[in-house]
């Protein structure tokens, strides 16, 4: 690696005109458009109008051949590692690599993931920029360092001063052991009666019971509006059929839980219905599977389960009967087999710095660069007289994903998704971390919508612990969640306009996002990763000066947004491009399991904030936005209108918060012994949350994230302070199927109109 690194700089330092070579290379460092993970968002901010990297001659350019820099933005998964090497090799000499973000250095928060690699073992790296995600300033500092290096001054931009530690006493101690409490043989149950009821609850249970007469089915109400139906593996299909007849028309999650000491897998389908009477009800259909890995699949009854089943096939090394896919879907070819089984263990944390103990486990780089296609596709395509276009993962308009497009002329006959390029194995990692440590982890599901991701996880914990959030904290959370929703829409709309070839729209929105991030920065101290919501409350109180700022923000973004509307939203060219494109009817949308604003754009009135209100949503005035057309245009417009509603919610929250007593932001139940002093968590975060243990059982909580329904389901054994299993189904993952189906039969260029309108975000989908 070092040889390769030196060779590239030597090209500039030697030969005739070397000063000219250095001068031109220095001012023309073009990074290629190769988004590898969440830090890409900050790369966008660095080249957006807030920082405008182009000032330094650093222009983000399409493709490897014409550029000379790779900025590795965060996690390089084993799947992406291949692309990274190929892109690097495609690039003409002399070329440079900067790695930004902790994930690309020693793995960051994903350091013990089974699906990551270290970029410096794949390509020679010139500079490492710490941060998670890095700030745009740090990113530009990396570019500056590279410029200096080309000039001839190759150094770190930071120097530490060594101080002498003053010692007082001498005594050798035993270091403490790990803070994790693990039950040796955890007792796993997902049908523990919750002892709660709700209006119409008993009737519903009776109705279900009567429909399932004659089948083995024990029906338990585990929580409010949560029903578990336990059955036998061979009858699950029949039960599913009958439930789908009642009106349970989609699957929210498919889950497997490995219980090795009982030699069983627990199979769970979380289903629900979009009819008015069934709306907030979740039924967990579960069966224990012993001694076999062929499971009854339900994707022929509910198509929305299809991709999730495929994913579980990879993660658990199982097969779902009836699922047409029997190849690798999410993972790279050389990841460990069935990594989510409990027999596969992740590296344990080290708490003591010792010589000889590596800071991070060694990971072999992928041995071959082949990223296989699904078998038979090539032959089939040839037979049909079509052709194949592989879009991504290194492509200006692919995102962190590969789309295998089958085209007949200009018409898309089929798109085969190839996800998993940002699969950072969050569910597995979560099983080895304390409950509190998973907060920053799950935030990184979607760095453009961090608060909602955070909220989803925290609410599941709160539901298990049955703690209430103080009113002030509830309003702060609502306000933050809505700000995050606005930020996410602004992001998606920006990417949408970029996909439409409209860089001005992108820049205008990035100016607005810069305002939003400034607000986040002042409230939480971080631009994109607030880690602000804690079980039982929020991390800090929001003072009056900040509330003023937020109040100003709600009106300040409007004039600039108006300009965006004038130049982009109302632009006749856009209308021509997106109207009537990628239409999904109500039935299709439900069948493919679309969620959130995109489902509402197809005419389904479903918003978790309305049907199962949490935090302060039911005490605020706002409206649900729907539409009937179900095309790309209204998918975009529905979110645009939702942004206006969100602004309304934020300003209402600000008003309420201003008139409320300050300080009370974390529930007393949670704080326990630590509630005096300041009501701030500062100083006692670990002591309060380190030993959080959830009661035994499973808690499934729905949250309305910016792109739709976010499902967190936490399973606890009741003894450990780490979760036994966490299942996350993100909105983008659910929308993937709909996106693929909407693009079928459209023109090739329409794919980006559809992709953009869905705001599809691969890191969120891949988890």
């Amino acid at each position, binding site marked *: 690696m070092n040889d390769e690194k030196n060779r590239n700089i030597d090209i500039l330092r030697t030969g005739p005109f070397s000063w*000219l*070579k250095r001068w031109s290379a220095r001012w023309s460092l073009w990074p290629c458009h190769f988004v590898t993970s969440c830090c890409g968002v900050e790369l966008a901010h660095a080249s957006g109008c807030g920082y405008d990297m182009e000032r330094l001659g650093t222009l983000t350019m399409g493709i490897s051949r014409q550029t000379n820099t790779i900025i590795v933005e965060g996690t390089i998964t084993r799947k992406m590692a291949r692309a990274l090497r190929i892109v690097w090799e495609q690039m*003409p000499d002399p070329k440079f690599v900067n790695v930004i973000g902790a994930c690309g250095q020693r793995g960051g928060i994903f350091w013990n993931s089974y699906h990551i690699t270290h970029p410096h073992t794949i390509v020679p790296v010139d500079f490492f920029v710490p941060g998670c995600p890095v700030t745009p300033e740090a990113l530009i500092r990396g570019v500056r360092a590279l410029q200096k290096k080309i000039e001839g001054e190759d150094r770190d931009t930071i120097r530490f001063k060594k101080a002498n530690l003053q010692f007082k006493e001498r005594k050798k101690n035993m270091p403490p052991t790990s803070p994790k409490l693990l039950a040796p043989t955890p007792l796993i149950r997902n049908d523990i009666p919750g002892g709660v009821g709700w209006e119409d609850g008993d009737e519903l249970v009776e109705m279900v019971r009567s429909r399932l007469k004659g089948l083995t089915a024990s029906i338990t109400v585990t929580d409010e509006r949560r029903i578990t139906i336990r059955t036998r593996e061979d009858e699950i299909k029949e039960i599913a059929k009958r439930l789908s007849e009642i009106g349970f028309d989609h699957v929210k999650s498919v889950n497997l839980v490995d219980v090795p000491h009982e030699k069983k897998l627990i199979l769970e389908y979380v289903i629900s219905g979009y009819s008015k009477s069934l709306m907030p009800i979740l039924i967990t259909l579960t069966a224990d599977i012993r001694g076999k890995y062929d499971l009854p699949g339900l994707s022929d009854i509910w198509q929305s389960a299809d991709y999730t089943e495929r994913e579980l096939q990879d993660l658990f090394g199982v097969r779902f009967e009836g699922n047409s896919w029997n190849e690798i879907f999410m993972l790279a070819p050389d990841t460990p087999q069935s990594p989510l089984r409990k027999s596969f263990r992740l590296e344990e944390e080290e708490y003591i710095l010792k010589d000889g103990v590596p800071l991070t486990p060694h990971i072999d780089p992928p041995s071959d660069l082949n990223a296989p296609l699904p078998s038979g596709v090539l032959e089939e395509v040839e037979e049909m007289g079509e052709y194949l276009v592989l879009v991504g993962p290194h492509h200006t308009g692919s995102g962190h994903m590969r789309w295998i497009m089958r085209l007949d002329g200009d018409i898309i006959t089929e798109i085969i998704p190839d996800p998993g390029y940002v699969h950072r194995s969050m569910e597995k990692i979560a099983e080895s971390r304390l409950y509190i440590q998973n907060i920053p982890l799950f935030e990184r599901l979607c760095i453009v919508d961090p608060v909602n991701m955070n909220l989803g996880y925290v609410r599941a914990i709160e539901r298990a612990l049955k703690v209430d959030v103080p009113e002030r904290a509830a309003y702060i959370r609502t306000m933050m969640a809505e700000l995050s929703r606005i930020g996410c829409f602004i992001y998606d709309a920006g990417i949408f306009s970029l*996909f439409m070839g*409209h*860089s*001005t729209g992108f820049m205008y929105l990035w100016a607005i996002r810069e305002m939003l991030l400034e607000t986040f920065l002042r409230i939480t101290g971080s631009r994109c990763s607030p880690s602000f919501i804690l079980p039982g409350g929020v991390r800090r109180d929001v003072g009056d000066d900040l509330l003023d700022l937020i109040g100003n923000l709600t009106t300040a973004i409007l004039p600039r947004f108006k300009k965006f509307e004038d130049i982009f939203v109302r632009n006749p060219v856009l209308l021509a491009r997106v109207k009537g494109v990628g239409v999904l009817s109500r039935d299709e949308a439900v069948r493919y399991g679309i969620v959130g604003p995109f489902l509402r754009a197809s005419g389904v009135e479903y918003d978790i904030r309305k049907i199962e209100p949490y935090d302060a949503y039911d005490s605020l005035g706002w409206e649900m936005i729907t539409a009937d057309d179900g095309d790309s245009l209204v998918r975009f417009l529905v979110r645009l209108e939702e942004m206006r509603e969100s602004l309304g919610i934020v300003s209402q929250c600000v008003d309420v918060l201003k008139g409320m007593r300050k300080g009370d932001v974390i529930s007393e139940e949670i704080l326990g012994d630590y509630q005096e002093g300041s009501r701030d968590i500062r100083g006692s975060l670990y002591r309060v949350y380190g030993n959080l243990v959830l009661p035994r059982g499973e808690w499934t909580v729905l949250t309305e994230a910016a792109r739709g329904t976010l499902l967190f389901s936490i399973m606890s054994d009741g003894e450990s302070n780490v979760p036994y299993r966490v299942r996350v189904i993100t909105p983008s993952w659910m929308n993937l199927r709909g996106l693929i189906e909407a693009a079928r039969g459209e023109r090739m260029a329409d*794919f980006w109109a559809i992709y953009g309108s869905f705001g599809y975000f691969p890191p969120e989908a891949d988890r």
Partner: protein
Amino acid sequence: MTGTVEALINLMMADQVAIPLLDPILNILYGIPLLGHLLALILWKPLFAALICPGFATLGGLLMLLPWIERKLVARIQWRIGPHEILPQMGGVIQLLADSLRFLFQEVIVHRDAKQPYFLQFPVLSFIPALLPLLFIPAGTIIAIESPYGAQIVLAMVTLFPLFILGLGWASNSRFAYIGTVREAFVYFGYEIALIVSAFAMIVLYGTSDPLAISGMQQVPGIILNPVAALAFFIASAMATSRLPFEIPEADQELAGGPHVEYSGILFGLIYVISYEKVYILSGLMTLLFLGGGSGPEIRVLGDLSGLIWFILKTLLVMIALIALRAIYPRYRLDQALRIGWNPVFTLSTIAVGVSLMEVLLL
């Protein structure tokens, strides 16, 4: 022998670029042997047109400047700054110099599947249709080759352009380049007829296609005489030069650059500037046909250069208008662009011919 040289020099001296302001200096310089001859040669109108303006040197200068203007202007509209730090005193005007030198010094990759000699030839060859039309476009009174069919020849050359782009894409032998090439071919069919017909409308109006005559005839600029033709020509030019909203063959977000996806180093540098050359030529043609070429308030001391300066200024204006489209519009889809080319724009250009005929008959 000497007689021939004498005759040649006399020929050249008879057709020199007249610059009254510089006359005293020039007269001294003419007296110096060799240097004087060289000067006479360069200032010989046809050669001056080919080498200096509107030919090679102006082209080169504009190619260095135009992407910078584009980046700065677009950045300004987009609330940014644009290239700056490389030369902060002058707003980073030499940014393109750094970029092109970087391309020059970078490795040129010819990938294994490329169709080899052609892969290297086409970027260089495409300069032919880029340079030749300049010989027929007058900058004021300066023109390289006077021809009664000048306007048609320029149009013919301009429509040659896509052939070379097709060549690039074909030689690249890559999926995206292939799709981009096909799109280029389609768009070509979309704009070509409208472009030619709208130019034809002006030729009908002026009754001549001699560029010098055309620019001489426009006491009232063509854009006022026949605005419909100007609009059609402008839209067709935007399509011809792949500017947004018609940037369909390159479509960065869809095809990652289309025909030039596989090119690197100086070869890409060449292709990168070719599209700007096309902008220059079509803007020059537009200036000639609709904006009166080099006509404008004459600055007497500059002599022939006066017309030249007016020509360059007007051309620059048209170029900036074409460039600024990028900041305003998203991209049309291929079929929509074709529909626009065939339907509204073609109709507009036909109407323009009608307008011209009416004007010719009535006035």
